[in-house]
C-alpha cells in the first residue's frame, strides 16, 4: 500500500494528544496578541505585551524562572548520574518518591524547611540556640533555592529510574571492565564511557524535566517566592483573574514562558555539544587521573542525601498529620491524635474518589492505546517515533492548558470529568507509552512466530501470548500512569473549570494557608493513593 506514515492507532494518539496541545498553544499565542474571538476580541493588538512588560519585577521573575529551571535540571541530572555510577537503588526503594505527586513532596519539604520545621527542630536549641521558631524566610526565599531544592528532590529519583532502565540497554558493566583494564579508574570509566551512552538514551526525559522545572506551578506555589514569583505563577494569577484584560496579559506571560522554555532548550543543546566535545577531547588525551572517582563518590553521597530529604519530606507529613501537642523545639510531638483524620476523611472522600477514577480511567485508556500503537508498529514492521506525542511533556503546561480550555469551552465539554480526563491523558499517555515501548519492542518476536506456527492468529497471539508475557511492564506502566494523573494540577484546574476537585487541587488550595495539619493530611492521602497502586503493581509484577 505504500502507507509509510501513520497507522490508525498512531493517528488516534496524535489526534488525542498532539492536536489539543497544538490547538492550546495556538490559542495562547493568538490571545497573547489580543485575538480571542470566543471572548469577543477579534482584533490583534500589542496591549497584552505592553502591560506585561510594564509589570514591575518581570525581569526578576524571568531570571528566577531560568535560574531555577536550569540549575535544578543540571543538578538533578548530575546527582542521578553519580548514583548510577554506583549500584543504584532499585524499584521498591524509589517507589514512594516516584509515586508522590510533585506538590506533595513540595508541601512536605516546606514543612521540613520552615522555621518551625523538622530541620530547625533537630538543630535546636543545641546548635542554633533557638528556643522559638526563628524569623527566617527559609521557604520562598527570593533566589528560589527552596524551589530548586524541591525540584531536585523530585526529579533526581525520576532521572535515576529512567537512567537505570537505560543502563540495562547496553553492556555498561562489560564496558566498564574494558575501560578499567585499559588503566582508567572507575570514575573516569563511568564518566567517559558509560555516562555519554546513558545520557543519549534519557535525553527526552531530561528535556521534560527542564520544561517542568521552568514552567511548573505545583511545586512553585508551596516553595517559590511570591515577589517576584516564577513566570508561570504570575501567568496563572492573571489567567484566574476575573478581569478580562488580565486574561490577555496572562496569555502574553504564558507565551513568554514558551519563549523561555525554547531559549533554555537551545542553551541546553549548546551545553550538550560543549560537554560532549570536551569529553571526547579529554578521553583522547588519555590521562589516568583519579579525581573523578572522588567527585562521583561525593555526588553519590549528595544523591543519597537528596533521596533521604525526599523520604523525610514524606515522613514529616505523617507526623504533622497526626500531631496534637508539638511545642518547639521538640523533634516529635508530645501527643498524637486521629481526630482530624477522622473528621476530615468525609471531606476528602470525594476528591479521593475523583483522583482514583481519573487515574484508573486515563491509565487504562493510555495502556490500550499504547498497546495498539506498539502492536500496529510491529505488524507494520516500522517503528514510529515516540517524540511527537511527548510534546505535552516538553512544552510549558501554562502555555497550552488554558488555551485547550477555551477550545473545550467552545465544544461545551469544559468543567466535565471527561474534559479533565482528556487533559490528564495528554500527560499520562506519553509516560505510559515510554514505559511500555522498550519492553514491548524487546519481547522476543519468536514467541509470536511460534504461536503463529501453531495456527494462532495475530490477535489471539496478542491476547494469549504477548500480553501475559508483558504482565509486569503493563502493571508498572499502569501504576506510572496513575501516579502521573494523580499529580496533575493545572490540567485539572483548567479543564475542570475549577469545578472538579482532586486531592492535588485540594492540596494546592491549602498550600498558601496556615493549616499545617490539614495540609499534611491531604499531602499524605495524595501520596498514599498512587503509592498503593504502585506497590500493588510491583507486587503483581513479581508474581
Amino acid at each position, binding site marked *: 500500500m505504500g502507507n509509510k506514515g501513520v497507522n490508525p492507532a498512531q493517528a488516534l494518539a496524535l489526534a488525542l494528544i498532539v492536536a489539543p496541545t497544538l490547538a492550546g498553544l495556538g490559542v495562547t499565542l493568538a490571545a497573547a496578541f489580543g485575538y480571542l474571538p470566543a471572548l469577543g476580541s477579534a482584533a490583534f493588538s500589542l496591549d497584552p505585551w505592553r502591560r506585561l512588560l510594564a509589570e514591575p519585577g518581570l525581569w526578576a521573575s524571568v531570571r528566577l524562572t531560568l535560574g531555577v529551571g536550569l540549575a535544578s535540571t543540571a543538578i538533578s541530572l548530575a546527582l542521578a548520574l553519580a548514583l548510577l555510577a554506583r549500584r543504584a537503588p532499585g524499584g521498591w526503594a524509589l517507589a514512594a518518591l516516584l509515586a508522590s505527586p510533585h506538590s506533595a513532596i513540595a508541601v512536605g519539604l516546606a514543612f521540613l524547611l520552615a522555621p518551625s520545621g523538622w530541620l530547625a527542630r533537630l538543630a535546636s536549641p543545641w546548635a542554633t540556640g533557638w528556643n522559638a521558631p526563628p524569623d527566617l524566610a527559609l521557604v520562598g526565599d527570593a533566589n528560589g533555592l527552596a524551589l530548586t531544592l524541591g525540584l531536585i528532590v523530585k526529579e533526581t529519583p525520576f532521572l535515576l529510574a529512567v537512567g537505570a532502565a537505560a543502563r540495562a540497554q547496553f553492556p555498561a558493566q562489560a564496558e566498564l571492565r574494558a575501560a*578499567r*583494564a*585499559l588503566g582508567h579508574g*572507575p570514575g573516569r570509566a563511568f564518566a567517559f*564511557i558509560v555516562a555519554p*551512552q546513558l545520557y543519549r538514551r534519557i535525553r527526552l526525559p531530561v528535556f521534560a524535566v527542564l520544561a517542568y522545572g521552568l514552567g511548573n506551578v505545583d511545586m512553585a506555589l508551596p516553595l517559590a517566592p511570591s515577589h517576584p514569583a516564577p513566570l508561570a505563577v504570575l501567568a496563572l494569577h492573571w489567567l484566574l483573574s476575573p478581569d478580562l484584560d488580565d486574561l490577555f496579559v496572562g496569555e502574553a506571560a504564558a507565551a513568554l514562558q514558551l519563549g523561555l522554555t525554547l531559549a533554555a532548550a537551545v542553551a541546553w543543546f549548546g551545553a550538550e555539544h560543549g560537554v560532549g566535545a570536551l569529553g571526547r577531547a579529554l578521553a*583522547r*588525551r588519555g590521562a589516568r587521573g583519579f579525581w573523578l572517582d572522588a567527585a562521583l563518590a561525593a555526588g553519590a553521597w549528595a544523591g543519597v542525601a537528596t533521596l533521604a530529604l525526599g523520604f523525610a519530606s514524606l515522613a514529616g507529613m505523617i507526623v504533622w498529620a497526626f500531631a496534637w501537642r508539638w511545642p518547639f523545639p521538640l523533634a516529635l510531638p508530645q501527643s498524637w491524635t486521629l481526630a482530624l483524620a477522622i473528621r476530615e476523611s468525609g471531606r476528602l472522600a470525594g476528591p479521593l474518589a475523583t483522583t482514583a477514577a481519573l487515574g484508573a480511567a486515563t491509565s487504562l485508556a493510555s495502556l490500550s492505546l499504547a498497546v495498539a500503537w506498539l502492536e500496529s508498529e510491529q505488524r507494520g514492521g516500522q517503528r514510529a517515533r515516540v517524540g511527537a506525542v511527548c510534546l505535552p511533556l516538553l512544552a510549558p503546561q501554562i502555555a497550552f492548558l488554558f488555551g485547550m480550555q477555551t477550545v473545550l469551552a467552545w465544544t461545551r465539554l469544559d468543567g466535565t470529568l471527561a474534559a479533565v480526563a482528556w487533559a490528564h491523558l495528554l500527560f499520562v499517555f506519553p509516560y505510559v507509552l515510554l514505559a511500555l515501548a522498550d519492553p514491548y519492542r524487546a519481547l522476543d518476536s519468536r514467541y509470536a512466530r511460534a504461536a503463529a506456527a501453531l495456527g494462532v492468529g495475530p490477535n489471539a497471539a496478542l491476547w494469549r501470548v504477548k500480553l501475559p508475557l508483558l504482565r509486569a511492564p503493563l502493571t508498572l506502566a499502569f501504576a506510572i500512569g496513575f501516579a502521573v494523573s494523580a499529580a496533575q494540577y493545572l490540567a485539572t484546574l483548567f479543564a475542570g473549570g475549577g469545578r472538579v476537585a482532586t486531592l492535588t487541587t485540594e492540596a494546592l488550595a491549602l498550600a498558601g494557608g496556615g493549616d499545617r495539619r490539614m495540609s499534611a493530611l491531604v499531602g499524605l492521602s495524595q501520596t498514599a493513593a498512587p503509592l498503593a497502586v504502585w506497590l500493588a503493581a510491583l507486587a503483581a509484577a513479581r508474581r
Partner: protein
Amino acid sequence: MSGLTVEAVTFAVGGRTLVRELSFRVADGAALSILGPSGSGKSALLAFVGGHLERVFAARGRVWLGARDVTGLAPERRGIGLMFQDDLLFPHLSVGDNVAFGLDAGVRSRAARGEAVAQALREAGLEGFARRDPATLSGGQRARVALMRSLVAAPKALLLDEPFGKLDAPLRRDMRSFVFDHARRRALPVVLVTHDPADADAAGGEILQLGTPP
C-alpha cells in the same frame, strides 16, 4: 624475574569450590591456554587475575607481575590488558578515539598521541580509519581495533577471554595469528581462556585443563 605468576588460587561460588590451589607461571612472550567446559570457572579465573572478579566469588591466592604483587590492586592499577568475546569498542567514540582512550598517558603531546594512534591503526591494517564510527567496521576490523586499544595501553600481561568465539572460521585463523604475533613481539605473557582446542594450538604454549563441574 619476569612474566605472570599465579599462586595457589582457590575460589568458590555458592559454597562450591571451582578451583583449588591452582598455580601457574607464564613467561614473557609465552602463552598459557586454559580449557574447560562452561561453568568450570575459567572465565572467573581470568577475572581474578585481572582484578575484575565480582564479590559473589570467595577467592584466595596471589597474582604477581614479575616481582610485583598486584593481588590487592584495583584492575586499573595492575597493568593487565583484557580482551573479551565481544570487542566492546565504545560506540560513542570514533575508531581513533577508542584507541586514544587506551593509549598510555605517558605519550603526552597531541602530535605524539595522534601519531601513536595512526601507527596502531596501520599495524591493524586500518590506516586512515581514525575518524570512522566503529559501527561501520566489519567484525574482524573491530576485533583488531580492540586488540590495538589494549596494546597501546602498554600492559605487562594480556588476558584473552574467548576472544575468537564470535568470529567465523577463516577470520578466526587470521585473528589468532594477529593476536599472538603482536603479543610475542611485545614479549607479553598471555593467558587465553577458550573451549576451542584449535585456539590453544595456535597459542602454542602450555595447556591447562580445568575440571568438569559435578
